């Protein structure tokens, strides 16, 4: 769930770099993300293996998405990672409280960003590449 297409591409590159094969579904605002969660709950959508959320989403903030997922029955076991540009302690605390497995700050160096792929692998329970 990310509204910046540049960051979407970077996430895609990071996943590719570390051999994570699959379908990347992108939601560009919080409302669509919450709608998606609703669809999964009602059974008309399939559960993802990993959710990556930016806190700064238009329409509904990432926090609400976290809350929504926290209350969802089906998504309880899907790991959700917050990938944000903020380093405010408040955001970290809130995210962890709302069930995020990890809080990651978006790095400025390309290499560091691509390295996130390794972290995603780990969360998905895949062996290192």
């Amino acid at each position, binding site marked *: 769930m990310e509204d*910046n297409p*540049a960051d979407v591409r*970077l996430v895609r*590159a990071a996943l590719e770099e570390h051999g994570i094969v699959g379908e990347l579904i992108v939601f560009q605002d919080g409302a669509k993300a919450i709608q998606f969660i609703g669809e999964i709950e009602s059974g008309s959508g399939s559960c993802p293996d990993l959710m990556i959320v930016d806190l700064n989403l238009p329409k509904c903030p990432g926090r609400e998405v976290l809350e929504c997922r926290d209350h969802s029955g089906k998504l309880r076991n899907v790991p959700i990672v917050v990938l944000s*540009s*903020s380093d405010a302690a408040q955001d970290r605390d809130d995210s962890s409280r709302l069930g995020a497995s990890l809080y990651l700050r*978006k790095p*400025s*160096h*390309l*290499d560091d*960003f691509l390295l996130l792929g390794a972290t995603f692998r780990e969360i998905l329970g895949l062996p290192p590449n």
Partner: protein
Amino acid sequence: MYQPGRTATDTQLETKAPSAPVPDVTAELWDFLEKAGVAFHWVAEDGTILWANTAELQMMGYQASEYVGRNIRDFYVDRQAIEDILIRLSNDENLNDHEARVRCKDGSTRWVAISSSVYRKDGKFVHTRCVTVDITDRKSASDLRQRLGAIVESSDDAIIAKDLDGIILSWNRGAERIFGYTAEEVIGQHVSILAAPDRIDEIPDILGRLRRGERVDHYKTKRKAKDGRILTISLTVSPLFDAQGGIIGASKVARDITLTESQEHALEAVNESLKMANADLEQFVYSASHDLQEPLRMVATYSELLMRTFRDQLGPDGADYLDYVLQGALRMEQLLKNLRAYTLVSTVQREPVDYVDSGMVLDRALANLRPTIVESSALITRGPLPKVKLQDFRLEQLFQNLISNALRYKRGPRPEIKVFAEPERNGWRFAVQDNGIGIDPRYKEQIFDLFKRLHSVAEYPGTGMGLAICKRIIERAGGRIWVESAPGRGSTFYFTLP
């Protein structure tokens, strides 16, 4: 005619002997005049002293031979005054309680009151009959009273006297000015006419304290003026005692501080709005620097991606250009990070501060700098380091900035850095000493300014904020920071902490 008698006891006094025998009753009167407790003398028309009694001689301090036969003018301080007296007397004027000054044998001056008349025989001036009373004490007391009265009258403050029942006895010009009532309107009234509506109860309380002999000092209160305005007054009330020490009333000095009060309030208001404006500005800088980092991240990451993905198509020049783009973005990012650190020094403020072990904090800072320390083979030594009152993360930042500078501006293969502390008047004086390239004394102050650097980025990397941040941290903690250095001789940075 008459004969002043020589008494048995006054062997020292000589008196002028008259030339004719005296009948007895006169002798008795004469004796009385001689020994009376008031100074009597006779003076001839030309001013010659014909006779003076014992009291006069004692008052003036002279022997009869030194006094009688001399001219009275010699014993008066103001020549004009004595001439005036003599002229009046010869014009048959009687003087009553006429004040003048005489000079005694010991040189001292006394004020006297003269009562005098002329004895004439057959119309001819025979001599004056003078009674002289020493009024020096009376005069100085009345001078003092006049002076005190002038002080009270001229004071800008209201000076009011009242009796124990609160009736106003005196009212100076200052009181007229401050309260608006004239003395006539207010003397005889009860002091409660001045009371402000919400302070009526305070007056009996003050009176009670006064009756017990207590003084009320600089008591800030409100009073009501004649036109109904409420004034803010600083009041001092002291009991008035009579000669026996009994309390007979009170004296109040009231200063109108209404204006001072409103000025103080205005000042406070300005201060508050300044504080708020400052806080707003810092918030703004903090947010702005945060928001500015995002677009930079885009520039940096994608320049790199561009370089990597299209390396072959770009060629060497293209790669260089992109590299400059990337470096520019990274540098700006660093600047923004430091700017936020700078504003953070004051925004994150009201935490309680404990004592921290500066040695432990130094260790943490050194751990943070480990890669650079190892890479430069730096030797870092320290003396014993005390506990100081500063947030640990600030002290860590302080050490880190100073040591990072020392490592960066090194001279020769082996940078040596010493950290030590000495006790000082109110706390500690720390020193971070290096053997680096040193600083030209001309720039000793400038280097602590924001964004100021002495070298280009190519020579030595940096954003010009490290020392500015250190200075802010230290000054907020109430200390000082300064450097002693010479080019080529290394630098020692000193800072004090309570």
